[in-house]
Protein backbone atom coordinates (compact mmCIF):
# COMPACT_ATOMS: atom_id res chain seq x y z
CA UNK A 1 0.00 0.00 0.00
CA UNK A 2 1.62 3.27 -1.05
CA UNK A 3 2.20 5.91 1.54
CA UNK A 4 1.02 8.79 -0.56
CA UNK A 5 -2.72 8.17 -0.23
CA UNK A 6 -4.75 11.14 0.90
CA UNK A 7 -4.70 11.34 4.67
CA UNK A 8 -7.83 11.54 6.82
CA UNK A 9 -8.33 15.19 7.61
CA UNK A 10 -8.12 14.55 11.36
CA UNK A 11 -4.49 13.46 11.13
CA UNK A 12 -3.27 15.91 8.57
CA UNK A 13 -0.64 18.30 9.84
CA UNK A 14 0.86 16.02 12.53
CA UNK A 15 4.19 17.14 13.95
CA UNK A 16 7.34 15.70 12.47
CA UNK A 17 10.10 14.02 14.43
CA UNK A 18 13.39 15.64 13.53
CA UNK A 19 16.94 14.94 14.56
CA UNK A 20 19.06 18.04 14.09
CA UNK A 21 22.84 17.68 14.01
CA UNK A 22 22.60 14.89 16.52
CA UNK A 23 25.67 13.51 18.25
CA UNK A 24 25.90 10.56 20.61
CA UNK A 25 28.51 9.44 23.08
CA UNK A 26 28.76 6.06 24.75
CA UNK A 27 31.21 5.83 27.60
CA UNK A 28 34.10 7.96 26.44
CA UNK A 29 33.67 7.32 22.71
CA UNK A 30 31.76 9.43 20.24
CA UNK A 31 29.45 7.04 18.39
CA UNK A 32 28.19 9.42 15.75
CA UNK A 33 28.04 13.14 15.00
CA UNK A 34 26.10 15.49 12.80
CA UNK A 35 23.13 13.22 12.16
CA UNK A 36 20.13 15.03 10.73
CA UNK A 37 17.02 13.19 9.73
CA UNK A 38 13.29 13.78 9.68
CA UNK A 39 10.43 11.33 9.82
CA UNK A 40 7.29 12.95 8.52
CA UNK A 41 3.65 12.02 8.43
CA UNK A 42 2.91 8.80 6.63
CA UNK A 43 6.59 7.96 6.29
CA UNK A 44 8.63 5.01 7.49
CA UNK A 45 12.39 5.26 7.88
CA UNK A 46 14.64 2.21 8.12
CA UNK A 47 17.73 3.03 10.10
CA UNK A 48 20.67 0.98 8.92
CA UNK A 49 24.22 0.55 10.03
CA UNK A 50 26.74 -2.03 11.17
CA UNK A 51 26.71 -3.42 14.70
CA UNK A 52 27.90 -0.99 17.33
CA UNK A 53 27.27 2.06 15.15
CA UNK A 54 24.72 3.42 17.57
CA UNK A 55 21.37 2.52 16.02
CA UNK A 56 19.80 1.69 19.36
CA UNK A 57 21.35 4.80 20.86
CA UNK A 58 19.82 6.91 18.10
CA UNK A 59 16.40 5.42 18.73
CA UNK A 60 16.72 6.08 22.44
CA UNK A 61 17.68 9.67 21.71
CA UNK A 62 14.73 9.97 19.35
CA UNK A 63 12.41 8.64 22.05
CA UNK A 64 13.77 11.12 24.56
CA UNK A 65 15.19 8.48 26.87
CA UNK A 66 18.74 9.69 26.53
CA UNK A 67 20.32 13.12 26.31
CA UNK A 68 22.35 13.82 23.17
CA UNK A 69 25.99 14.82 23.32
CA UNK A 70 25.27 17.48 20.69
CA UNK A 71 22.32 18.61 18.64
CA UNK A 72 18.70 17.94 19.49
CA UNK A 73 15.66 15.87 18.72
CA UNK A 74 12.56 17.91 17.95
CA UNK A 75 8.90 17.05 17.88
CA UNK A 76 6.96 19.71 16.04
CA UNK A 77 9.83 22.09 16.71
CA UNK A 78 9.99 21.47 20.46
CA UNK A 79 12.75 19.35 22.03
CA UNK A 80 11.25 15.96 22.85
CA UNK A 81 12.25 15.96 26.50
CA UNK A 82 10.33 19.20 27.01
CA UNK A 83 7.36 18.51 24.77
CA UNK A 84 3.89 18.17 26.30
CA UNK A 85 2.47 16.27 23.36
CA UNK A 86 5.31 13.93 22.49
CA UNK A 87 4.71 11.25 25.09
CA UNK A 88 1.10 10.67 24.20
CA UNK A 89 2.03 10.49 20.52
CA UNK A 90 4.94 8.09 21.01
CA UNK A 91 4.96 4.33 20.97
CA UNK A 92 8.44 2.99 21.65
CA UNK A 93 9.23 -0.69 21.61
CA UNK A 94 12.84 -1.34 22.46
CA UNK A 95 14.98 -4.41 22.27
CA UNK A 96 13.52 -5.60 25.57
CA UNK A 97 9.90 -6.59 25.55
CA UNK A 98 8.78 -4.86 28.76
CA UNK A 99 6.74 -7.90 29.71
CA UNK A 100 6.89 -9.20 33.27
CA UNK A 101 7.78 -12.88 33.62
CA UNK A 102 5.37 -13.36 36.50
CA UNK A 103 2.37 -11.74 34.86
CA UNK A 104 0.17 -13.15 32.13
CA UNK A 105 0.38 -11.66 28.66
CA UNK A 106 -2.89 -9.83 29.17
CA UNK A 107 -1.87 -8.49 32.57
CA UNK A 108 1.46 -7.23 31.21
CA UNK A 109 -0.18 -5.47 28.30
CA UNK A 110 -2.90 -4.05 30.50
CA UNK A 111 -0.29 -2.46 32.72
CA UNK A 112 1.48 -0.89 29.76
CA UNK A 113 -1.81 0.33 28.31
CA UNK A 114 -2.81 1.92 31.62
CA UNK A 115 0.55 3.63 32.05
CA UNK A 116 0.34 5.08 28.55
CA UNK A 117 -3.32 5.96 29.03
CA UNK A 118 -4.46 3.79 26.18
CA UNK A 119 -7.40 1.46 26.03
CA UNK A 120 -6.82 -1.33 28.54
CA UNK A 121 -10.13 -3.04 28.02
CA UNK A 122 -9.58 -6.85 27.94
CA UNK A 123 -11.70 -7.21 24.80
CA UNK A 124 -9.55 -4.73 22.90
CA UNK A 125 -6.39 -6.42 24.21
CA UNK A 126 -7.56 -9.83 23.08
CA UNK A 127 -8.39 -8.48 19.65
CA UNK A 128 -4.92 -6.98 19.42
CA UNK A 129 -3.32 -10.25 20.51
CA UNK A 130 -5.36 -12.07 17.89
CA UNK A 131 -3.97 -9.76 15.26
CA UNK A 132 -0.42 -10.81 16.12
CA UNK A 133 -1.37 -14.46 16.46
CA UNK A 134 -1.09 -14.61 20.23
CA UNK A 135 -4.79 -14.76 21.01
CA UNK A 136 -4.66 -18.35 22.22
CA UNK A 137 -1.87 -17.60 24.70
CA UNK A 138 -3.38 -14.49 26.17
CA UNK A 139 -3.63 -15.87 29.71
CA UNK A 140 -0.31 -17.64 29.66
CA UNK A 141 2.44 -16.52 32.00
CA UNK A 142 5.06 -14.60 30.04
CA UNK A 143 7.66 -16.88 31.61
CA UNK A 144 6.29 -19.83 29.61
CA UNK A 145 6.54 -18.22 26.19
CA UNK A 146 9.28 -18.60 23.61
CA UNK A 147 11.32 -15.63 22.44
CA UNK A 148 9.30 -15.27 19.29
CA UNK A 149 6.04 -15.43 21.20
CA UNK A 150 7.21 -12.79 23.65
CA UNK A 151 8.18 -10.52 20.77
CA UNK A 152 4.75 -10.94 19.21
CA UNK A 153 3.05 -10.21 22.52
CA UNK A 154 5.17 -7.06 22.93
CA UNK A 155 4.29 -5.97 19.41
CA UNK A 156 0.59 -6.45 20.11
CA UNK A 157 0.77 -2.89 21.42
CA UNK A 158 1.04 -1.81 17.80
CA UNK A 159 -2.29 -3.42 17.02
CA UNK A 160 -3.81 -1.81 20.08
CA UNK A 161 -2.72 1.61 19.11
CA UNK A 162 -4.85 3.71 16.86
CA UNK A 163 -3.85 6.96 18.42
CA UNK A 164 -0.07 7.02 18.45
CA UNK A 165 1.38 8.90 15.56
CA UNK A 166 5.05 8.00 15.88
CA UNK A 167 6.34 4.49 16.31
CA UNK A 168 9.96 3.99 17.27
CA UNK A 169 10.84 0.33 16.99
CA UNK A 170 14.17 -1.34 17.76
CA UNK A 171 14.57 -4.58 15.82
CA UNK A 172 10.83 -5.33 15.64
CA UNK A 173 11.36 -8.36 13.39
CA UNK A 174 13.80 -9.97 15.80
CA UNK A 175 12.94 -13.59 16.65
CA UNK A 176 9.82 -13.53 14.45
CA UNK A 177 9.04 -16.20 11.90
CA UNK A 178 7.78 -15.37 8.38
CA UNK A 179 4.20 -15.26 9.60
CA UNK A 180 5.09 -12.86 12.37
CA UNK A 181 6.91 -10.58 9.94
CA UNK A 182 3.75 -10.48 7.79
CA UNK A 183 1.65 -9.46 10.81
CA UNK A 184 3.96 -6.62 11.67
CA UNK A 185 4.13 -5.36 8.12
CA UNK A 186 0.33 -5.37 7.91
CA UNK A 187 0.20 -3.27 11.06
CA UNK A 188 2.82 -0.91 9.61
CA UNK A 189 0.81 -0.40 6.45
CA UNK A 190 -2.31 0.42 8.43
CA UNK A 191 -0.38 2.79 10.66
CA UNK A 192 1.22 4.69 7.80
CA UNK A 193 -2.05 5.05 5.91
CA UNK A 194 -3.56 6.57 9.05
CA UNK A 195 -0.90 9.23 8.86
CA UNK A 196 1.43 7.73 11.41
CA UNK A 197 5.19 7.64 11.04
CA UNK A 198 7.78 5.05 11.92
CA UNK A 199 11.46 4.98 12.69
CA UNK A 200 12.85 1.49 12.99
CA UNK A 201 16.04 -0.51 12.90
CA UNK A 202 16.37 -4.00 11.56
CA UNK A 203 19.38 -6.10 10.70
CA UNK A 204 17.17 -8.20 8.44
CA UNK A 205 15.36 -6.84 5.41
CA UNK A 206 11.75 -5.88 6.23
CA UNK A 207 10.56 -8.16 3.47
CA UNK A 208 8.43 -7.91 0.40
CA UNK A 209 5.22 -7.30 2.30
CA UNK A 210 6.64 -4.26 4.07
CA UNK A 211 5.62 -0.72 3.14
CA UNK A 212 8.06 1.45 1.20
CA UNK A 213 10.66 2.79 3.57
CA UNK A 214 13.20 5.56 3.31
CA UNK A 215 16.62 4.27 4.29
CA UNK A 216 19.07 6.09 6.48
CA UNK A 217 22.57 4.77 6.83
CA UNK A 218 24.33 5.60 10.08
CA UNK A 219 27.75 4.29 9.08
CA UNK A 220 29.14 7.47 7.49
CA UNK A 221 28.49 9.47 10.66
CA UNK A 222 30.64 7.41 13.01
Amino acid at each position, binding site marked *: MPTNQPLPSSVAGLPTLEAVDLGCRRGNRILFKGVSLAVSTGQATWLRGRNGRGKTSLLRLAAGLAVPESGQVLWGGTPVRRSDTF*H*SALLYIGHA*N*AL*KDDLSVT*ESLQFLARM*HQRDSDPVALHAALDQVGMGSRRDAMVRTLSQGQRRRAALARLALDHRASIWILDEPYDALDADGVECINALLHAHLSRGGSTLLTSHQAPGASAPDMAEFDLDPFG
Partner: protein
Amino acid sequence: MGSAFSAVYVRDLRLALRRRVEALLPLVFFVVAISLFPLGVGPEPQTLRQIAAGVVWVSALLASMLSVTSLYAGDHADGSLEQMMLSGQPGLVIASAKAAAHWTVTGAPLVLAAPLIGLLLDMSTAGLLTLVVSLLLGTPILSLLGGMGAALTLGLRSAGVLLILLILPLSIPALIFGAGAVGAVDSGLATSGHFSLLGALLILTALTAPLATSFALRIALE
Protein backbone atom coordinates in the same frame (compact mmCIF):
# COMPACT_ATOMS: atom_id res chain seq x y z
CA MET B 1 -2.12 10.38 37.47
CA GLY B 2 -4.02 8.51 40.15
CA SER B 3 -4.48 5.63 37.77
CA ALA B 4 -0.74 5.50 37.11
CA PHE B 5 -0.09 5.26 40.85
CA SER B 6 -2.57 2.45 41.29
CA ALA B 7 -1.42 0.69 38.10
CA VAL B 8 2.18 0.53 39.37
CA TYR B 9 1.18 -0.20 42.96
CA VAL B 10 -1.24 -3.02 42.11
CA ARG B 11 1.18 -4.54 39.63
CA ASP B 12 4.00 -4.60 42.16
CA LEU B 13 1.76 -6.20 44.77
CA ARG B 14 0.59 -8.78 42.29
CA LEU B 15 4.19 -9.59 41.36
CA ALA B 16 5.10 -9.97 45.03
CA LEU B 17 2.15 -12.29 45.61
CA ARG B 18 3.35 -14.50 42.81
CA ARG B 19 6.75 -14.77 44.46
CA ARG B 20 5.58 -15.18 48.00
CA VAL B 21 8.70 -16.84 49.31
CA GLU B 22 10.92 -14.06 48.04
CA ALA B 23 8.55 -11.45 49.40
CA LEU B 24 8.78 -12.95 52.88
CA LEU B 25 12.57 -13.16 52.97
CA PRO B 26 13.05 -9.71 54.56
CA LEU B 27 10.70 -10.70 57.36
CA VAL B 28 12.60 -13.92 57.95
CA PHE B 29 15.88 -12.01 57.94
CA PHE B 30 14.38 -9.59 60.46
CA VAL B 31 13.52 -12.38 62.89
CA VAL B 32 16.81 -14.20 62.42
CA ALA B 33 18.89 -11.07 62.86
CA ILE B 34 17.10 -10.12 66.06
CA SER B 35 17.52 -13.63 67.43
CA LEU B 36 21.28 -13.29 67.06
CA PHE B 37 21.48 -10.58 69.68
CA PRO B 38 20.45 -12.62 72.71
CA LEU B 39 22.92 -15.22 71.50
CA GLY B 40 25.58 -12.55 71.26
CA VAL B 41 24.97 -10.51 74.43
CA GLY B 42 23.47 -13.11 76.74
CA PRO B 43 19.86 -13.91 77.58
CA GLU B 44 19.41 -11.76 80.69
CA PRO B 45 16.01 -10.10 80.42
CA GLN B 46 17.34 -6.84 81.81
CA THR B 47 19.99 -6.47 79.13
CA LEU B 48 17.63 -7.51 76.40
CA ARG B 49 15.00 -5.02 77.48
CA GLN B 50 17.60 -2.26 77.32
CA ILE B 51 18.83 -3.06 73.86
CA ALA B 52 15.47 -4.22 72.45
CA ALA B 53 14.36 -1.01 70.76
CA GLY B 54 17.71 -0.42 69.10
CA VAL B 55 18.05 -4.05 68.02
CA VAL B 56 14.59 -4.18 66.49
CA TRP B 57 15.06 -0.85 64.73
CA VAL B 58 18.47 -1.66 63.28
CA SER B 59 17.24 -5.06 62.11
CA ALA B 60 14.23 -3.42 60.48
CA LEU B 61 16.58 -0.97 58.80
CA LEU B 62 18.78 -3.73 57.42
CA ALA B 63 15.84 -5.90 56.35
CA SER B 64 14.40 -2.93 54.47
CA MET B 65 17.67 -2.10 52.78
CA LEU B 66 18.30 -5.69 51.70
CA SER B 67 14.97 -5.95 49.92
CA VAL B 68 14.99 -2.56 48.27
CA THR B 69 17.93 -3.25 45.97
CA SER B 70 15.64 -5.17 43.63
CA LEU B 71 12.97 -2.47 43.57
CA TYR B 72 13.93 -1.16 40.14
CA ALA B 73 16.38 -3.79 38.98
CA GLY B 74 13.78 -6.20 37.53
CA ASP B 75 11.95 -3.46 35.67
CA HIS B 76 15.22 -2.09 34.37
CA ALA B 77 16.31 -5.48 33.06
CA ASP B 78 13.13 -6.32 31.16
CA GLY B 79 12.54 -2.84 29.76
CA SER B 80 9.48 -2.01 31.88
CA LEU B 81 11.23 0.90 33.52
CA GLU B 82 11.88 2.57 30.17
CA GLN B 83 8.21 2.22 29.30
CA MET B 84 7.19 3.72 32.62
CA MET B 85 9.51 6.68 32.15
CA LEU B 86 8.26 7.19 28.58
CA SER B 87 4.62 7.06 29.57
CA GLY B 88 4.42 10.77 30.25
CA GLN B 89 3.38 10.08 33.84
CA PRO B 90 5.34 12.13 36.37
CA GLY B 91 8.39 10.29 37.67
CA LEU B 92 7.30 11.46 41.09
CA VAL B 93 4.13 9.36 40.91
CA ILE B 94 5.97 6.25 39.75
CA ALA B 95 8.57 6.59 42.51
CA SER B 96 5.89 7.09 45.15
CA ALA B 97 3.94 4.07 43.96
CA LYS B 98 7.06 1.88 44.01
CA ALA B 99 7.97 3.03 47.52
CA ALA B 100 4.39 2.46 48.70
CA ALA B 101 4.43 -1.05 47.24
CA HIS B 102 7.77 -1.77 48.88
CA TRP B 103 6.42 -0.66 52.24
CA THR B 104 3.29 -2.75 51.86
CA VAL B 105 5.26 -5.88 51.00
CA THR B 106 8.27 -5.41 53.29
CA GLY B 107 7.65 -2.67 55.85
CA ALA B 108 4.15 -3.49 56.98
CA PRO B 109 4.97 -7.12 57.86
CA LEU B 110 7.83 -5.86 60.02
CA VAL B 111 5.45 -3.59 61.88
CA LEU B 112 3.05 -6.48 62.40
CA ALA B 113 5.83 -8.82 63.55
CA ALA B 114 7.31 -6.30 65.97
CA PRO B 115 5.02 -7.08 68.94
CA LEU B 116 5.93 -10.77 68.82
CA ILE B 117 9.60 -9.93 68.51
CA GLY B 118 9.29 -7.52 71.40
CA LEU B 119 8.03 -10.31 73.58
CA LEU B 120 11.12 -12.33 72.74
CA LEU B 121 13.17 -9.46 74.09
CA ASP B 122 11.04 -9.06 77.20
CA MET B 123 9.75 -5.59 76.39
CA SER B 124 7.05 -3.96 78.47
CA THR B 125 3.59 -3.49 76.99
CA ALA B 126 4.00 0.25 76.80
CA GLY B 127 7.37 -0.26 75.14
CA LEU B 128 5.84 -2.67 72.62
CA LEU B 129 3.09 -0.26 71.68
CA THR B 130 5.55 2.57 71.27
CA LEU B 131 7.80 0.35 69.18
CA VAL B 132 4.95 -0.54 66.84
CA VAL B 133 3.95 3.09 66.36
CA SER B 134 7.54 4.17 65.82
CA LEU B 135 8.01 1.45 63.19
CA LEU B 136 4.72 2.40 61.58
CA LEU B 137 6.03 5.92 61.12
CA GLY B 138 9.61 4.90 60.42
CA THR B 139 9.40 2.03 57.93
CA PRO B 140 7.79 4.21 55.23
CA ILE B 141 10.77 6.56 55.61
CA LEU B 142 13.07 3.61 55.01
CA SER B 143 11.12 2.54 51.91
CA LEU B 144 11.26 6.07 50.50
CA LEU B 145 14.98 6.49 51.15
CA GLY B 146 15.65 2.97 49.92
CA GLY B 147 13.83 3.68 46.67
CA MET B 148 16.09 6.66 46.09
CA GLY B 149 19.15 4.54 46.79
CA ALA B 150 17.94 1.82 44.45
CA ALA B 151 17.45 4.35 41.66
CA LEU B 152 20.89 5.88 42.20
CA THR B 153 22.65 2.51 42.12
CA LEU B 154 20.57 1.02 39.30
CA GLY B 155 22.48 -1.49 37.25
CA LEU B 156 25.80 -1.02 39.05
CA ARG B 157 28.06 -3.81 40.21
CA SER B 158 27.77 -4.32 43.98
CA ALA B 159 24.62 -2.21 43.91
CA GLY B 160 23.37 -3.89 47.06
CA VAL B 161 26.26 -3.04 49.35
CA LEU B 162 26.66 0.38 47.78
CA LEU B 163 23.00 1.15 48.42
CA ILE B 164 23.36 0.23 52.06
CA LEU B 165 26.43 2.45 52.40
CA LEU B 166 24.59 5.37 50.83
CA ILE B 167 21.28 5.07 52.62
CA LEU B 168 22.21 3.97 56.14
CA PRO B 169 23.70 7.35 57.13
CA LEU B 170 20.59 9.09 55.84
CA SER B 171 18.40 6.76 57.92
CA ILE B 172 20.13 7.64 61.17
CA PRO B 173 17.72 10.42 62.19
CA ALA B 174 14.75 8.06 61.81
CA LEU B 175 16.60 5.45 63.85
CA ILE B 176 17.38 7.95 66.59
CA PHE B 177 13.83 9.28 66.89
CA GLY B 178 12.20 5.88 66.51
CA ALA B 179 14.29 3.91 68.95
CA GLY B 180 14.50 6.96 71.19
CA ALA B 181 10.73 6.98 71.57
CA VAL B 182 10.81 3.52 73.08
CA GLY B 183 13.66 4.51 75.33
CA ALA B 184 11.64 7.48 76.51
CA VAL B 185 8.65 5.31 77.40
CA ASP B 186 10.84 2.96 79.37
CA SER B 187 12.23 5.89 81.34
CA GLY B 188 8.75 7.21 81.95
CA LEU B 189 9.28 10.26 79.76
CA ALA B 190 6.95 11.67 77.13
CA THR B 191 7.20 10.30 73.62
CA SER B 192 5.41 13.18 71.95
CA GLY B 193 8.66 14.92 71.05
CA HIS B 194 10.07 11.83 69.35
CA PHE B 195 6.86 11.10 67.50
CA SER B 196 6.48 14.69 66.31
CA LEU B 197 10.02 14.66 64.99
CA LEU B 198 9.54 11.25 63.40
CA GLY B 199 6.28 12.38 61.85
CA ALA B 200 7.89 15.55 60.54
CA LEU B 201 10.71 13.47 59.10
CA LEU B 202 8.18 11.21 57.39
CA ILE B 203 6.42 14.19 55.81
CA LEU B 204 9.69 15.74 54.70
CA THR B 205 10.90 12.46 53.20
CA ALA B 206 7.56 11.83 51.49
CA LEU B 207 7.75 15.26 49.89
CA THR B 208 11.37 15.09 48.73
CA ALA B 209 12.47 11.48 48.24
CA PRO B 210 10.16 10.65 45.29
CA LEU B 211 11.39 13.73 43.46
CA ALA B 212 15.01 12.80 44.07
CA THR B 213 14.21 9.22 43.02
CA SER B 214 12.68 10.34 39.72
CA PHE B 215 15.80 12.40 38.98
CA ALA B 216 17.97 9.41 39.83
CA LEU B 217 15.92 7.19 37.49
CA ARG B 218 16.29 9.65 34.63
CA ILE B 219 20.03 9.82 35.23
CA ALA B 220 20.29 6.02 35.32
CA LEU B 221 18.45 5.66 32.02
CA GLU B 222 20.44 8.29 30.19
